[in-house]
C-alpha cells in the first residue's frame, strides 16, 4: 500500500536525516587530532609516567581566555596541542612546537594566538579557524606579514625584533604616506617636498618635464612617486608651475646670486668633502641616500638657485631636513662652482633649464590637475595638507569582502594581496584611482604591507601596550630651538621618540653622556668618532658661541636621571683603580672592537679620548648594560659587577689623548 510505504520511508528518512548533525558533531576532526597527539606524545615521552599522562589526556576543547584583551577566546590549542610542549619539538604538522621568538612559546597565556596570527580563535574547525571560509571575519595573517601582529601592541616606530615592521614604518614615513592618508599619531606629518612657489626659480621647463615623467628614474633617492602622467598632463602641470609666482624675497635672492662672479671649483671640491655632504646626499650612488643624488644636479637646478639655496635653504623650503651651513659667501660660490662643473648630465640637450613661456589655458588646466592629483598634500606651502587618500586607521582589519579588486582577476581575495597589489601597481585595481606608483622593491612592499596590517580596528588595551622605551621628544624654543632648527639636528639624531635615523647617537641623554668642553670642540670642528660608519657629522662651520649655547642646552635639558653624576661617590677607594681597570679591559677583549693606543678593532669608537669625551657616570652605566640605550647596540653586556664596571670606568677616564684631526683644527672661523 503506497501510503503506508510512504509513511515507512519518510519515517526512516526522518530519523536518518535528524541523526546526521549529531553524527557530524561526534566526528569533529579535533577529536582524532587529540588522540593522535596523545599517541605521539606517549611515543616521544622520556619517562613512563609522562607517557601515561599523555595517554590519560581527555579529548576536550582547549582554550585561552583573555578577558582583558578584547575578551579574546582562542581555541587554537584544541588542535595545535604541541605549541607549548617541548616534547613536540620537531614533531610533524599540527603537533609541532611553536618556533621561538620574544613572546613565544612562553607568553601564550598572556596574548593567546589570534592577537598575532589573526584568524578566528573561537572556531574549532580548520577552515573556520584559519579564516578560509567566506565571511570569516578575520582571516589569518600570512606568515610574511606576521610582524604586523607585533605592531598591534608596539605602536612606536622602532620595534625590536620586528625588523620588517620597523622597516615598513620607516618606509611609510619616508614615502610620505601620511601626507595623503590620515593615520592616528601622524596627524602632524608634513612632507618635506618643496613648496611650489620656489620650483620655477630652481629649474627649467624641460628639466621639470623630465622630472614629472619619472622622478625616481632621475634620482634614485627621490621620495616623489611616479604619477604616470601623460605628456599632455605634464605639459599642463609645467605651465601651471611656471605660472606660480615665487615670493619677491626668494626671487631677489636668486637674482642677486645670479649676478655674482663664478667661484673657485677646486676650493669648492675641498669644502664639499670637508662638509661631509654625502652623509646625507649621494654622488654617483656613494653616500647615505637620504637626500637627493647630486651627480647630475646642475642639469636640474640653476646655478643662481643652488647658490641662494645653499646660503639659506630654509627660506626656500621650511620643511627640508637640510641644515644651514655656516659657509662664507665665497665658500658657497666655490662649492656651487664645483657642483656646476662636475655634477652635470653631459648627455642632456642644451636648454634644459630654460624657463617656460606660460600659456594661460594650459596653466589653468594644470592647476586643476594639480589639485585633482592631490599634489597639494605634499607641496602645500603651509596649512593643513589636503589629504585626498582614505584614512588608514582601521585598514588592518578591513574585511576582504569590502575591497575592490576591480579588473584584477589574478589576485586572491585577501587583504594582504590587495594591499600588495595596491602598493605595487595602484592603478591596476580600477580606473580613476589617484594613488601614484612608489616603485618599492618586493621586500619593501612586504614591509609596508606589514606596517599597514598593524593598524587594527580595535585599540589594544593600555595594559597590553608596552611602556615606551624612549621618552617623549623635548626640543626647547628660543635661541637653542633656533639653533636646533638651523642645523636640523633632528634630521639625523634622535631626541626622545622623534628624529632621523642617520646618526647612531641619540641626543636624548647627551648632557649625561659627554663632557661640555668636548662637545663645544666637536661642534665647531667635528671628526670621525666611529671609523666604521660612512655617515659622519657634517662640519657646519658653527661659531664657538653657538656651540657653547648648544653644549649648555645639552647639560640643561638632555640629562638622564638614572645616570649618576659621580659613580664613584660612596664606593670604596679600590674602585678607582685604573690599573685594575686596564686589566679588565684586556681580559674582556674590548680591543676586538675598540682602538686603544695604536691598535684595536674598528667597530666601536676608539677609546683614546674616552676620558676627554665621556662622563664617568655614562661610561659606568653603559658598561652595566649597553643595550639600555639602543637595542641594536653590538657591545656585549658582560654582566660586570659594580666594582669592575667602576674600575673600567676609572681606567677609561685616564684616556685623554686628543685625536689627530683636532690638533690641526683651525676652529670655527666664519
Amino acid at each position, binding site marked *: 500500500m503506497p501510503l503506508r510505504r510512504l509513511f515507512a520511508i519518510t519515517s526512516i528518512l526522518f530519523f536518518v536525516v535528524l541523526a546526521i*548533525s549529531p553524527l557530524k*558533531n561526534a566526528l569533529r576532526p579535533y577529536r582524532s587530532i587529540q588522540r593522535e597527539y596523545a599517541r605521539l606524545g606517549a611515543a616521544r615521552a622520556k619517562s613512563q609516567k609522562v607517557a601515561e599522562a599523555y595517554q590519560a589526556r581527555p579529548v576536550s576543547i582547549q582554550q585561552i581566555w583573555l578577558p582583558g584583551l578584547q575578551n579574546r577566546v582562542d581555541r587554537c590549542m584544541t588542535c595545535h596541542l604541541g605549541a607549548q610542549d617541548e616534547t613536540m619539538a620537531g614533531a610533524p604538522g599540527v603537533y609541532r612546537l611553536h618556533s621561538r621568538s620574544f613572546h613565544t612559546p612562553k607568553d601564550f597565556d598572556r596574548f593567546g594566538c589570534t592577537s598575532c596570527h589573526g584568524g578566528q580563535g573561537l*572556531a574549532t574547525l580548520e577552515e573556520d579557524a584559519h579564516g578560509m571560509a567566506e565571511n570569516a571575519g578575520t582571516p589569518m595573517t600570512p606568515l610574511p606579514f606576521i610582524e604586523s601582529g607585533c605592531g598591534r601592541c608596539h605602536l612606536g616606530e622602532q620595534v625590536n625584533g620586528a625588523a620588517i615592521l620597523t622597516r615598513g614604518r620607516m618606509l611609510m614615513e619616508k614615502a610620505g604616506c601620511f601626507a595623503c592618508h590620515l593615520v592616528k599619531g601622524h596627524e602632524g606629518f608634513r612632507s618635506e617636498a618643496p613648496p611650489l612657489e620656489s620650483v620655477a626659480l630652481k629649474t627649467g621647463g624641460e628639466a621639470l618635464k623630465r622630472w614629472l615623467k619619472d622622478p625616481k628614474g632621475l634620482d634614485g633617492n627621490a621620495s616623489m612617486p611616479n604619477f604616470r602622467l601623460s605628456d599632455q598632463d605634464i605639459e599642463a602641470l609645467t605651465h601651471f608651475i611656471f605660472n606660480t609666482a615665487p615670493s619677491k624675497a626668494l626671487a631677489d635672492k636668486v637674482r642677486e646670486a645670479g649676478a655674482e662672479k663664478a667661484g673657485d671649483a677646486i676650493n669648492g671640491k675641498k669644502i664639499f668633502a670637508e662638509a661631509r655632504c654625502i652623509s646625507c646626499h649621494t654622488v654617483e650612488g656613494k653616500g647615505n641616500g637620504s637626500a637627493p643624488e647630486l651627480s647630475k644636479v646642475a642639469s636640474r637646478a640653476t646655478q643662481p638657485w643652488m647658490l641662494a639655496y645653499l646660503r639659506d635653504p630654509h627660506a626656500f623650503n621650511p620643511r627640508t631636513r637640510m641644515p644651514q651651513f655656516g659657509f662664507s659667501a665665497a665658500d658657497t660660490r666655490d662649492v656651487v662652482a664645483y657642483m656646476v662643473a662636475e655634477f652635470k648630465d653631459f648627455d642632456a640637450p642644451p636648454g634644459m633649464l630654460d624657463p617656460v613661456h606660460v600659456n594661460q589655458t594650459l596653466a589653468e588646466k594644470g592647476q586643476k590637475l594639480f589639485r585633482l592629483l592631490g599634489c597639494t598634500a605634499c607641496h602645500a606651502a603651509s596649512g593643513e595638507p589636503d589629504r585626498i587618500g582614505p584614512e588608514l586607521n582601521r585598514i588592518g582589519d578591513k574585511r576582504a569582502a569590502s575591497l575592490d579588486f576591480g579588473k584584477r582577476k589574478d589576485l586572491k581575495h585577501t587583504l594582504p594581496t590587495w594591499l600588495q597589489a595596491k602598493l605595487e601597481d595602484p592603478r591596476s585595481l580600477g580606473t580613476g584611482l589617484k594613488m601614484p606608483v612608489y616603485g618599492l622593491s618586493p621586500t619593501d612592499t612586504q614591509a609596508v604591507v606589514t606596517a599597514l596590517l598593524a593598524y587594527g580596528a580595535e585599540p589594544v588595551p593600555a595594559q597590553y601596550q608596552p611602556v615606551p622605551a624612549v621618552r617623549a621628544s623635548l626640543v626647547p624654543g628660543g635661541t637653542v630651538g633656533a639653533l636646533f632648527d638651523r642645523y636640523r639636528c633632528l634630521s639625523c639624531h634622535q631626541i626622545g621618540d622623534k628624529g632621523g635615523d642617520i646618526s647612531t647617537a641619540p641626543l636624548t641623554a647627551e648632557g649625561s653622556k659627554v663632557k661640555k668642553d668636548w662637545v663645544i670642540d666637536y661642534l665647531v670642528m667635528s671628526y670621525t668618532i666611529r671609523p666604521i660608519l660612512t655617515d659622519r657629522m657634517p662640519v657646519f662651520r658653527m661659531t664657538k658661541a653657538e656651540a657653547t649655547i648648544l653644549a649648555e642646552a645639552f647639560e640643561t635639558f638632555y640629562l638622564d636621571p638614572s645616570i649618576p653624576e659621580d659613580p664613584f661617590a660612596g664606593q670604596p677607594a679600590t674602585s678607582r683603580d685604573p690599573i685594575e681597570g686596564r686589566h679588565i679591559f684586556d681580559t674582556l677583549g674590548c680591543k676586538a672592537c675598540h682602538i686603544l693606543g695604536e691598535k684595536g678593532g674598528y667597530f666601536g669608537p676608539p677609546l683614546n679620548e674616552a676620558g676627554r669625551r665621556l662622563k664617568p657616570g655614562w661610561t659606568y652605566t653603559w658598561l652595566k648594560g649597553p643595550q639600555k640605550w639602543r637595542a641594536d647596540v653590538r657591545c656585549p653586556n658582560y654582566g660586570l659587577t659594580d666594582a669592575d664596571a667602576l674600575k673600567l670606568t676609572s681606567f677609561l677616564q685616564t684616556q685623554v689623548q686628543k685625536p689627530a684631526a683636532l690638533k690641526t683644527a683651525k676652529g670655527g672661523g666664519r
Partner: protein
Amino acid sequence: MSSLTLSTLTAWVRNSAVYRSIIRHGVADTNRNRSLVIFENLFLHVHPVKVREKTLKFTHTFWLGGITMVATFVLFATGILLMFYYHPSVPQAYRDMKELMFVVDNGVFYRNMHRWAAHLMVLGAMLHMLRVFYHRAYRPPRQFNWVVGVVLLLITLLLSYTGYLLPWDQLAFWGVSVGTNMAKEAPLIGKPLRFLLLGGNIVSENALLRFYVLHCVVLPAVLMLFISVHIWRIRKDGGVQGPPEKDPGEEVEP
C-alpha cells in the same frame, strides 16, 4: 511460561494500568476507537472525527497552511534551543552566533533550521493566502478567518523581521536600519513609533533587547493566540475549503 515476543510485550503494555490511564481507548481498529483517538486527544481534537474524502487530495489545499504550521513548530523547537545560548547584548550576541557555529553541539544545525524554517513560514503563509484567495475560500462564512489570516501574515513578517536583528551582524544591522528608516516616514506616528521600537534613535543595544523580547515572548504568544483562533474557525466554518465547486448547483445557501 510463554516466550516473550513483541506481541505479548505490547499486549502487556497496553493492559497496564498506567497505559490505560493515559490512552483511554483500545486499538484503533474499529471506527469507534478511531473516533475516540480524535476525541480523547487534546492535540487531535481540533479535527473532526470524519472528513470529506476529497479534502485529502493534495491539490485541494496544497497543504500550504499545514506546511506553514510545521515550519512554526520547527521554529518554536529550534528557537527555544537557540535561546539557551543567546544573550541579547552587544557584542556578545554576535559572539554567541560564532559559538553556536563553532563549538555548540548541533548549534549550526539548529540555527540553520531556524533560519530556513523562518523563510519557509513567510513564504508558506503568503502562498497559503494566495491559494485561499484564488479558491475564493474567504467567502462567507469564512470572512473573519480571512482577516485572522491577514493578521497572522503580519505577525509572521514581524517575527521574521525582529529575528533578523538578533545575530547582530552587518546583514542584521543594516537590514533593520533600512526597514526602520522606512517606518520613520509615516506622518505623525512614524518617528515616535520608531523610537519606541528601537528604544532610541538608532539601531543599538536597546533595539536588540526590544527585538529580542518581541521575538521570543510577545510575538510568539500573540501568534499562538491567533493560530488557535484561526484553526478553531476552520472547524466552526465547516472544515477546509478547497477550490470552488464546478457545479454551483451542488451548493445551497439556506
